[in-house]
């Protein structure tokens, strides 16, 4: 039986009290739409703290177990990746043809959730590549995927707890 449990990391600025649950990201530029964002790699979570969670000068890394059984896994599952790519491009072409406006990836993902009503999708796993060579051990090739998961259904997150905190550099 396949194990869909993953340990993943959530970064936030340090607040007066520790979090019991992750905080929903509603930023306009959140790739995969509104949701609870996690990193696959602890180091990526730390980098995000230093770079983007600087408001209180300290950041915290939380860890949680995620049940990924109903996550669209575009990173490790080839069938899911090809499916997701096809749907994104189909929707994008439709938007462009009908409105003349090129949508953002967030627009597309918001559309999947709101209009296509993909309620059964608990989250989407996605990757890009790190842009800072300081975090790579070889030169000239970004060989390491930077993997994120957006969770739409908080019910798949368990054992959410503070792992560590640090001062922003």
């Amino acid at each position: 039986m396949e194990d869909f449990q993953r340990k993943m990391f959530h970064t936030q600025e340090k607040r007066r009290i520790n979090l019991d649950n992750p905080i929903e990201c509603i930023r306009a530029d959140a790739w995969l739409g509104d949701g609870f964002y996690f990193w696959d790699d602890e180091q990526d979570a730390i980098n995000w703290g230093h770079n983007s969670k600087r408001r209180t000068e300290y950041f915290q890394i939380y860890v949680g177990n995620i049940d990924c059984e109903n996550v669209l896994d575009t990173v490790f599952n080839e069938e899911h990746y090809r499916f997701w790519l096809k749907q994104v491009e189909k929707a994008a072409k439709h938007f462009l043809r009908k409105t003349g406006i090129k949508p953002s990836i967030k627009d597309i993902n918001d559309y999947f959730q709101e209009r296509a009503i993909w309620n059964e999708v608990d989250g989407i796993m996605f990757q890009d590549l790190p842009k800072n060579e300081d975090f790579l051990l070889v030169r000239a090739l970004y060989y390491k995927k930077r993997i994120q998961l957006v969770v739409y259904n908080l019910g798949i997150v368990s054992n959410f707890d503070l792992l560590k905190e640090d001062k922003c550099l």
Partner: protein
Amino acid sequence: MLDLKKLEQKLDEALEKETSESLRNWLLSNKRKNFENYLGDGLIEEMNHVSSKIGISFSKNSVSNKEKDSTPPNYDFYKSAA
């Protein structure tokens, strides 16, 4: 396990129903919602227009206000999620 065929069918049906107007309205409404989220919670105070009879002339090489205002906002500096 996710039923990918069912998801595709739901998306196809949603797209099929869209007219140019409904899709444009949804897209603009979504962009407005995202922009309001970016602004954060709070009240937006409406500014009063103040008219004046003072005229301003621009030199030949100056940039007009219209040209300045027409520069689209650049959101590129916002990084990815979370």
